[in-house]
């Protein structure tokens, strides 16, 4: 089955994540609305998170949590380890998501602040500093 063949060859998460990154970048570059830029940045960050986590995707493995489902007995550490997926990307993504939220919040604050000062909704109206 060619689809499955193809899917097994590539990393589906990485692929969709990368495309999502491109979609986000396109949004950042093409939509002049301040909020739209922020939204596109969020989409891009989600894509990046997918890319990150894609490297920790191992077929057929479970979450890296030692519970009864994974390890019958807690002492069988080595055996449990062989059934779990890579935890490092997960740890990294956790951090990245929170940072993404922080950035988004701040970016939106600026947008709000600019609007409150009577500015336009398009980034084109903030080009007084140039050359």
């Amino acid at each position: 089955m060619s689809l499955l063949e193809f899917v097994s060859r590539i990393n589906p998460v990485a692929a969709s994540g990368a495309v999502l990154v491109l979609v986000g970048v396109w949004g950042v570059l093409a939509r002049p609305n301040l909020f739209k830029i922020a939204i596109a940045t969020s989409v891009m960050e989600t894509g990046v998170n997918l890319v990150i986590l894609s490297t920790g995707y191992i077929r057929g493995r479970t979450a890296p949590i030692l519970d009864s489902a994974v390890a019958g007995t807690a002492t069988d550490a080595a055996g449990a380890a062989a059934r779990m997926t890579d935890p490092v990307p997960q740890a990294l993504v956790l951090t990245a998501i929170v940072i993404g939220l922080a950035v988004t919040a701040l970016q939106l604050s600026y947008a709000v602040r600019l609007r409150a000062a009577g500015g336009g909704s398009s980034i084109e109206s903030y080009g007084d500093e140039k050359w």
Partner: protein
Amino acid sequence: MVNPLWLFALSLGAAFLLPLVDRLGRRIALVLVHGVTAAWLAAGLSWLAVLLSGGEAAEFGTAGFRAPLAIVLRVGLAEAAGVTAIALTGLLAAFSLTRSLREAPLGGAMALLMALMGLSGIVLTRDLFNLFVFLEISAIGTYGLLGFDDRKPALRSAFKYMIAGGLASSLYLIGVIYVYRLADTLNLDIAAAGTALSGPAGTAAVFFLLAALLVELKPFPANGWAVDAYETAHPGISAILSGASATALLLALWKILPLLGPAHLSLVAGSGLATFAAGNLVGARQDRPLRMLGYSSVAQVGLVAAVAALARLGGLGDGGADFAAAVAGGLLLNHLLAKTGLFLLAGAVEDDDARGRLAPLSLAAAGVLSAALVGLPPFPGFWAKWRLVRALADSGLWWILAIVLGGSLLEAFYVFRWLGLRAKGEAGEAPVRLGIRSAGPVLAALLLAAAGALAGIRGPVPDLLLWAPWAAAAILFLLDGTPGWLKGLLSVAAAAAFGAAAWDRLDGFRQFFAVMLLGGGALFSIAALRKGGPRRGLHPLLAAATLALGAILVARTPLEFFFAWETMTAASWLLVLRGRGGEKPALSYIVFGLGGAFLLMAGLAAGGWDGGIAAAGWPGLLVLVGLLVKAGALGVHVWLPGSYAESDDESSGFLSSALSKAPIFALFALALSLGAALPGGPWTSRALGWLGLATALGGALYAVYQEDIKRTLAYSSLGQIGYILLAFAAMDQAGWTTSLYLALNHFLYKSMLFLAVAGVIQRTGTRNMYEMGGLIKKMPVSFLSVLMAIIALSGVPPLSGFGGKWLLYSTLIGKGWYLETAVAFFASAVAFLYLYRLIHSIFLGQPKPSQANVREAPVALVLPQLVLMAVLMAVSVFPRLMLDPILALVGDRFPAAFVFEGTRLRSALGYWDGTLTMIVTGGVFALCLVWMLANLHNPQSVKQFNIVFAAERPLRPETTHYAWRFFEPYRKALGFLTRERAERFWDAFGTGAASVGGALRRLYTGNGQTYALHVVLYVAVLYLLLGVL
């Protein structure tokens, strides 16, 4: 060593508790902020102390584990220096931010703490993902800081900044995760040690990492977002961005260098150099100071990145990593302190919207900071740039060298333009006082000076004599409030002491020039006493320039020579700037001065040193051209007339009669160390001869049409230097004798002229000759001085000037340079025109009623003139006084062409007996005088206007004194020769550079989205190039 983790705990704890502390009062909260920053500084310094005294770099793990399991921090020399620099900048900036922080919401202070901690974290961490976290901490802190004091423009910029920052961090994350995937670690050292990253996938992964860091380093053209922020933020924030943030990011780049392959490194180098060139080109077009500094920042950072990459590539430097650390580190330190200080200073001025000139202390700080930024000695950038240039020359990377020097020159142009503006201010504006806000810039300036001096004295220039100019300048600046006579005497004493200390180290040639250079300095230091009052700034600069001239003579290595040379250039530039209308001339003076110096530097770096400048081949030609620029040869002379005219009158004299001999000395030194030959051989000589001749003729012709005395004298100096060059180019005993004789003579009579003219200008208050007239009765001594000087200058026997002419023509005809002889003859004849005009318009003809009360010049001017007159008479009567030493100096390097027989000097073609000439002339003159007096019957003096005037009686001196446009028919006949082609050429050149800058800066549209587009395109193009490489 102090565990850096304590500092992170301290920063975070303080930041987290800040809202509670704030309840006790904002002051206390701010003290906490400053205290934490100071703690970082203390820690950085303690690390530096440990590491510099031989301590080992240390790693600090977290959570009780080591890499790769846990995150590890490393404190090495680079890290310690980086943390110190960041904390220092932070402290300076925080100090300037205090008021804003007090008035704004507390978020500002918290963001500041976070930003600084983040930057330090970037420096310290060895973990790639942790690096990302710290990048984000500092980025978000910065975003917060950009808007915290509610400047509307800064709010706009911050949004643009965030878009670009978001793109960069996404790129970075993608890079990090694939590095992890391939290398199975996040630790830098482990990743660098393995080979997993060498394949195509690894190259791509590292590329993303690198691209993100490069974008954060604000490369051209993807840096509009940053420049906007630099321009609009609070100056303290701009200082952090430009200084601390750049430091941290460069160290981050430095860290990942081991991961990079040659192709990556080429990208970094290319991008850095392009940024350096483009940043400076665009900066040159910028008239808003903060934005200008922004462009300068990105340019400097680009250069540092390029240097680091080039050194890593292996094509550069002697000691690999050491070299890179020294050069890149030196440049960075220089940039950091200078830019921090400048942002604070310029920002304070802009915040006040002040248009006046800066108060003295701030101005001095601004001067030091600007000079450091441009890489003048003795600041750290100078040493770094020298090593860089040397390495580039050694590696044969000439085009990079050209970019580096060209960019630096552009930078000098716009930075010094700003400085000139601030030094002069707009007319009618009150001086700008910054009060306590100047503390930061002053501190930065002091640190720069200290760091530079330390680097120099403990490094390549241990000879304290070479530091004398700086010491003298510093001491006299401190005494600047004291009366002028004290400083004048000190200056003279300094020159004398320098001469005494250096005398034994100088060979004959150098002693010969020392008399002119140091003596000239002392002479004009005395002349500077002509006005009362402290005359702030004049004496320190004059003394510094004088001693720098001396330092040029005692230099023993190329670096020492260049060090002294640039010192001289800088001091004399400030002298020009000090003049009343000195702003524009000073700018062209320093730009051409540095342009020449840079050529010299390239040549020196490539050539050797043999007790003199031993640069053969085309490095030698570079040196030659550099010296010619400084000498003011025709074509590159455009800086000369304005600077001589607009500087203070004693400074003009100093520049013309003493300082102009420095390039002459250097030419001799160059030729001497090549065995009395020029690089390039006879063709160079011939070309140099014609160039000298063109200079002589051009100088004379231009001088004819000037209305301004000092411009006349300036062009006259140009012409005289032309003769000296012409004679020098002959490269034989006759030529060198002539050249040295002319140089010494020029020193004598041009000093007299400038001294006399200084008196005239002081008394009449004008420089326009047609506004004077008939001053002979008011200022007889000055008249006599000018009379003798112009007789000598024009070469009319019996004064010593004729000796020069005789030697010159004998040389030229003997050498077979016949056409040159004819042109020289013509040029000498033209000199009569302006000399006559000079003495006629000022001293003769009809006096002006408004100048009825003019007195003789002050004693400080008259006395030196009397001495010089006596000397001139002595050497005229006894030419051997001057010629014997010169002949001895030239010695037996060449076959003898001139020989003395008693008082008669004999050449292959003819002879000249100066003493007999003087006696005959004196006798004849006495005879005629007696005849005249004997037949003088009933002489009557008549009143003004009692002249034979056709049928009417003139009433006004303005219409009777024929002085304005004196040689108009001459202009009609030969004006086509003096159409200022060189000026127009250089104007066009400037316009060309400006239009390139103008075209480039069209990229900076102000649209944040366009900036983001630039970022993405930049990354894409970089990737394409990576594929190509």
